[in-house]
């Protein structure tokens, strides 16, 4: 294969993968500690993309728009936790059902407000970098770098005292609360942080894709596949699998056309058969 094509596909895969990582990490964070199986997580990502796109089109600097998008989604996550999910904490199915409803409301609300069309957000990083005879757009590199920076910040946060408390809550809420950790606050933090990650993912990727109200559905499939393969609650697994899925999507689309989804499912099926708890997940007692 031509090296140039290979390099471009690799870069595209990394760009897609970096957004997948952020979304999947947010999902696994929320599900791990707050036990909200967030079906609307993909739509949080869509909302982040729209907020970022709108602010950039209004003329705000990109970094400010990115931060505002993240904060807005964190606020949204916080509010939805307080109003909807906290009262339903002990009923897993109703939580799932309400996230479904929330997702429907969000998608249709955006369609009503912004219309059902693609919104193209201009990239702030223009220009092309030439390495030898291969040209690389600065925009794609910037997407990968920003995602990397966000993941690094998340990693540092999880190493801090609050992060450790969050991890303890994920492992055992009752035990953590006996150790004097305010688990209620940890749930709020997890929910806000996870939602913010989804929003940032959407904001980062939107110059590469374009913002459309239904963009949450494909990513829902993707992050669920990632979490199934990586295992529940594993951030490291989410990073590796997210990158892998980005590469599969990019290379698969080049070689197989639109059958790339099927390739992804095949991988998921194999993993499901060999290790139902995921590659990095903790093995549970196999029931049934």
């Amino acid at each position: 294969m031509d090296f140039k094509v290979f390099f471009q596909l690799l870069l595209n895969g990394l760009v897609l993968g970096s957004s997948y990582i952020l979304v999947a990490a947010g999902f696994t964070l929320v599900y791990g500690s707050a036990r909200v199986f967030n079906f609307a997580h993909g739509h949080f990502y869509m909302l982040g993309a729209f907020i970022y796109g709108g602010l950039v089109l209004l003329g705000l600097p990109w970094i400010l728009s990115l931060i505002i998008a993240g904060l807005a989604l964190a606020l949204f996550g916080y509010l939805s936790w307080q109003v909807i999910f906290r009262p339903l904490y002990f009923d897993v199915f109703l939580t799932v059902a309400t996230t479904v409803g929330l997702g429907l409301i969000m998608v249709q609300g955006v369609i009503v407000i912004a219309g059902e069309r693609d919104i193209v957000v201009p990239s702030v990083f223009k220009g092309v970098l030439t390495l030898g005879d291969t040209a690389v757009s600065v925009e794609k590199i910037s997407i990968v770098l920003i995602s990397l920076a966000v993941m690094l910040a998340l990693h540092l946060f999880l190493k801090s005292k609050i992060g450790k408390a969050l991890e303890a809550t994920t492992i055992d809420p009752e035990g953590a609360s006996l150790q004097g950790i305010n688990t209620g606050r940890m749930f709020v933090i997890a929910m806000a942080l996870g939602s913010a990650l989804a929003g940032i993912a959407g904001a980062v990727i939107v110059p590469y894709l374009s913002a459309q109200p239904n963009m949450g559905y494909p990513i829902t499939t993707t992050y669920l596949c990632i979490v199934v393969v990586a295992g529940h609650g594993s951030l490291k697994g989410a990073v590796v699998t997210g990158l892998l899925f980005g590469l599969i999507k990019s290379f698969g689309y080049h070689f197989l056309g639109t059958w790339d989804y099927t390739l992804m499912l095949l991988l998921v099926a194999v993993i499901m058969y060999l290790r139902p708890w995921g590659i990095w997940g903790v093995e549970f007692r196999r029931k049934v």
Partner: protein
Amino acid sequence: MQLQKYPQWLLLTGIFLILIFLPFLITSQHLMHILILAGLECIAVMGFIAQYNVRLITFCTATFWGLGAYASGFLSTKLGMNFWFCLPLAGVIAGCFALIIGLLVIRAGWVTFLMITVVMAEISVEAIGHMNLLGGWDGITRIPRPAIGSYLFLSKASYYYLTLALVMVCVLIFKGLYKSAIGKAWTAIGQSPDLAESVGIDLFKYRMIAYVAAGFTSGLSGSLYAHYVSYIAPQTFDIIRSLYISIDAVVGGLGFVISGPIVGSIILRAIPEWLRIADKYQPIFEGCFIILCALFFRKGVIGLLSRYVVRPDEKSWKGVSVGDPGD
């Protein structure tokens, strides 16, 4: 309340008579259309609740619905088969698919199962869209209406009776299952899988029965749907349809295995149409409804009514406990 003293058969007969004479009372063709769609949907909702009772939360009910519709559409248009052969065959094909998929995914924990059903719902649309044999993204057109001899089921009223008959059949199927030993085992699993397993109930077997029964009835319903609208496309059976089905189940009341689906699907199909907001605001309406239901009346509309009128026949269990993800 006073009504509780009357025997249940009186209530059932009354409802049955109303359902029989409904086409004479309703003049609006549009309303009949809504009723037919709601009737077809409530069958899928019953399947959803049967699976929910054994703690399998699924979001691909519409996939099996679509499978039945596609099987029936393919058999009748491409192979020229009679509707009365297509209908059971569609059910059997959907049931077989449920059997194969169930063998692969039911053993995993419920979270993984839920994720896989979502993925399946998305993949099936993509896969059918790429199959030229099944019409690709254009779908299958000109599916004939069913006929007996020379009588064609063309009018809405006649199709309403056909739908009613199928709903009755499915109600009988599910009622029979719930009354039998299988249903007892389902209830036991719904209350506590661990306990059920410890007294010797084969979880896999009974989950499989629920899954296949839901697939079979959904397939039947899908077949009738395909012959009703006479045009099916992959996008008709996407995940949003499955999400609507699960919302119907919650709104009707998850504890009410037969009456809940019927009431839930009629409410959620009819009210947006009645308010004339269907095309644009229906998802918002459904979303608000489900959130309000989950927050304020968790037993659904029937649960709300049953406090006053109907004898409660609910099979209650207090939700899935917050356990380890593999549970």
